[in-house]
């Protein structure tokens, strides 16, 4: 945090534009969570850039009193890469949807992650194309009935976090639109230097209402959510259950924890730098297992823009940007009034 930075409040991050989501949409909660979190990050609105693609979620930048770019469908990661390389001091947030990031934009998402551009990617996963009025998306579950799949969808859905991991992401987290913990996830993502990928389960109340209820609903949360914290054992059901490693099958299993003795039950202590365990947490089938929420993986690596800046500086080291000399490079000859001479 820059010490000169003026202290901001939620209000400083709100624009004068009317918010145009459907009443009740999960996007409102996320917007508020972000606007609430920004002052705590000690950043300045003028150094902050929100970049989005196209979708309901992608309207987000219009509501943030920062710089913002509502680009074209699927290309926000690429636009962000250019902006960040052009000015590495900008604090870049990418706002995208399951369609925007994983359907048309999957490739840019993957390349941003593998290159490790320093930014936060918030993927609003509502398992549907909201803006175009409710067709199924790459994250929709098999059998989803939509205008384009009147008999139910047959495609196997993508897992955003598995995709991110396979793409080489070094920070992966999950949050829920109306979950109060979302702020902490955002803070962790911001603290991570490099590409921070956050999947946010977002309720599209119009086209895919309450699809996440089975784990997002508050009343059953204790038994359906595994809230992760680094260095803490993986417990849920108020500590009565935990996640352990099955030494036979080399995969995770749910164990009962008796009297809080999780050590005895061999419950795993969450280590955000363990990539293999992160993979298992991501792929845990819900139902048999709870849904892992929070920071699943966090193990920074050098960032793309830092490497570019460093290489540019090194290559330029000791060289003067002398345009005339550049033009004159190579073998030249002079023509005088009398003709050429070497």
């Amino acid at each position, binding site marked *: 945090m820059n010490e000169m930075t003026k202290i901001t409040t939620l209000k400083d991050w709100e624009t004068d534009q009317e918010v145009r989501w459907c009443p009740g949409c999960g996007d409102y909660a996320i917007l508020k969570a972000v606007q609430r979190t920004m002052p705590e990050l000690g950043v300045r609105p*003028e150094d902050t850039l929100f970049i989005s693609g196209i979708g309901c979620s992608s309207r987000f930048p*219009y509501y943030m009193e920062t710089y913002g770019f509502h680009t*074209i469908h699927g290309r926000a990661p690429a636009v962000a*890469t250019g902006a960040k390389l052009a000015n590495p*001091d*900008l604090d870049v947030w990418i706002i995208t949807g399951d369609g925007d990031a994983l359907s048309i934009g999957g490739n840019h998402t993957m390349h941003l992650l593998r290159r490790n551009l320093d930014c936060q990617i918030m993927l609003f996963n509502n398992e549907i194309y909201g803006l175009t009025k409710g067709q199924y998306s790459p994250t929709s579950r098999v059998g989803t009935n939509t205008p384009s799949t009147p008999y139910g969808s047959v495609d196997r859905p993508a897992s955003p976090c598995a995709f991110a991991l396979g793409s080489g992401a070094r920070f992966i987290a999950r949050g829920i639109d109306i979950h109060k913990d979302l702020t902490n996830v955002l803070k962790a993502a911001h603290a991570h230097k490099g590409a921070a990928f956050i999947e946010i389960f977002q309720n599209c109340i119009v086209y895919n209402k309450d699809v996440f209820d089975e784990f997002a609903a508050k009343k059953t949360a204790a038994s359906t959510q595994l809230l992760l914290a680094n260095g803490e054992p993986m417990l849920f059901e108020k500590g009565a259950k935990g996640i352990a490693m099955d030494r036979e099958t080399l995969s995770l299993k749910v164990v009962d924890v008796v009297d809080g003795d999780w050590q005895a039950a061999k419950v795993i202590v969450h280590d955000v730098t363990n990539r293999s365990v992160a993979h298992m947490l991501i792929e845990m089938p819900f139902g048999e297992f709870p849904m892992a929420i929070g920071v699943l993986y966090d193990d920074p690596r050098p960032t793309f823009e830092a490497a570019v800046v460093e290489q540019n500086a090194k290559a330029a080291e000791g060289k003067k*940007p002398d345009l005339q000399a550049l033009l*004159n490079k190579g*073998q030249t000859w002079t023509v005088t009034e009398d003709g050429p001479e070497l």
Partner: protein
Amino acid sequence: MATALKQDDNSSNQPESAENVVVRFAGDSGDGMQLTGGQFTLSTALAGSDLATFPDFPAEIRAPQGTLFGVSAFQINFGSRAIETAGDEPDVLIAMNPAALKTNVDALRDGGLIIADAGEFGKRNLDKAKYENNPLEDGSLAKWQLLKLDISALTLEAVKPFGLGNKEALRSKNMWTLGLALWMFERERQPIIDWLNTKFAKLPDVAAANIAALNAGHAYGETAELSGDGLGGGHLTTRKVGAAPSAPGEYRTVTGAEALSLGLVAGAQLADVPMFFGGYPITPASAILHHLSRLKEFDVTTFQAEDEIAAIAAAIGASYAGKLGITSSSGPGIALKGEAMGLAIMTELPLVIINSQRGGPSTGLPTKTEQSDLYQAVYGRNGDAPMPVIAARSPSDAFECAIEAVRIAVQYMTPVMLLTDGYIANAAEPWKIPDVASLEPFPVTYLDKMPEGGLKPYSRDEKFARPWIKPGTPELMHRIGGIEKGIDTGHIDYGSANHQKMTEIRRDKVLGVADSIPDQDVALGNAGGKLAVVGWGSTYGPIHQAVRRAVEAGKDVAHIHIRNIWPMPKNLGDLLKSYDRVIVPEMNTGQLKTLLRDQYLVDAKPINKVSGQPFTIAEIDAAIEENLS
């Protein structure tokens, strides 16, 4: 006119003077013909001759040695007068193997000279070239002069002292050949020797071997009494091609891709803005990415993106962030960028898009030249999406065009399309190096504080350009996007009247660029008259030469060459209407002609060629002839 190497029956030892000579080096892809051609070009340029070159690559993949499709050729036309094309027909063909002979000999002028490496005309190579008999022996080349030399053996001999392996040693064949060529045209060897020493600084043996081969080839010409079939028992002598009259100054050779890259750097400096270049490799555009990635000290950031869409999107992001975004590709890649160009148009950000055109449609002919993306440049986007388009006519013109593209982009806050093509990209010509001090700067100003009356990101200056605001600037936070924007405010606006007005503003802004460009000139001939030959881009050379011939022959013909494809110079309509006839030679099925007919209702007649090869002068000659009668 070209006088080529003719039968030398006066046995004089004085170099013959030639106005211009066309030499074609042809060999296997592995034989280093492009390098040989390039160095010959350099030495010719250093001697002050004017010149134009045409590198003719095989299709993308390195073919097995000796095959017909693996032949690589390099043609140079040089002379003591202005040279505008690489020449219709070679006077001299240097053929390093049977395949090179087969694929190139038909273009050779009747009576022209063939120099063939007889050492490569064994059974295997003849088979690969689909020759039943050895053409060097069966008399089938009778209409040309033929000089058979076992260049392979001579080279091996020359480099023996350096103890290289056979394969390694044969690599110097091209230098031997170059040595001979330098002798033939009385060129200096020193620059090449210097170049070899630099290139192989870490491999002194290889450098020495190459230099030895070069010297050996040269010495061979000097000492051997070269004679051959069709030389009529005469000897081959040297031909001196003098210096072409050119303006005093410092010169170098430059290819289109180089000149264009340099022009972009110059443009960015004149605009006083750092450059961000987003590209994705594609033939023949990649060369620009390669050049620029070596120029980081000029505040150039290059980014090899995951595809063409990401490349332009990143450039747009960089422009929003305050750098000058540039992207470059060829036909298929430019097609992919269409949607994003619309975004740059809507968000009114500066952006330069370079299209190095190649043969289409689809993957088409990646290594061949064509001008068939003009439609795509002017019309190829969804919606009413106007964008300035300019086209370079030659390698050195590419430098100026690049600066011009940058100027228009930053002064009008608009994407600009710059067209070049495979021919220009690879061809080299002598270039009078511009004096940087004489280039006019056009520094941009960012809006950096709150204007009176509040922030209006879509307010406009007298050019209809909106302000450029860098994220990071306090107070000026604002949001842009691809949805229609409200007048002045730039907020989302779906209103009917607003859309009508904004569409008109976008159109008028681009049309307004015409206020800042020079009137269309007549490159040669009179303003008004019987026939105008109107061209654009790389057809400049053949059109100019053909019109010159016609004018010299007293015909009423003019050459008009359009750089500003969109918007066009304001006087163009009147100018075209001052001719009885207008013909438009293009390397496509008739694209510029559509613009001319639409804009000016002149009966512009298309002259089209789509063979992946530049026009020959003769082809334009014929068209002129036909349209004068």
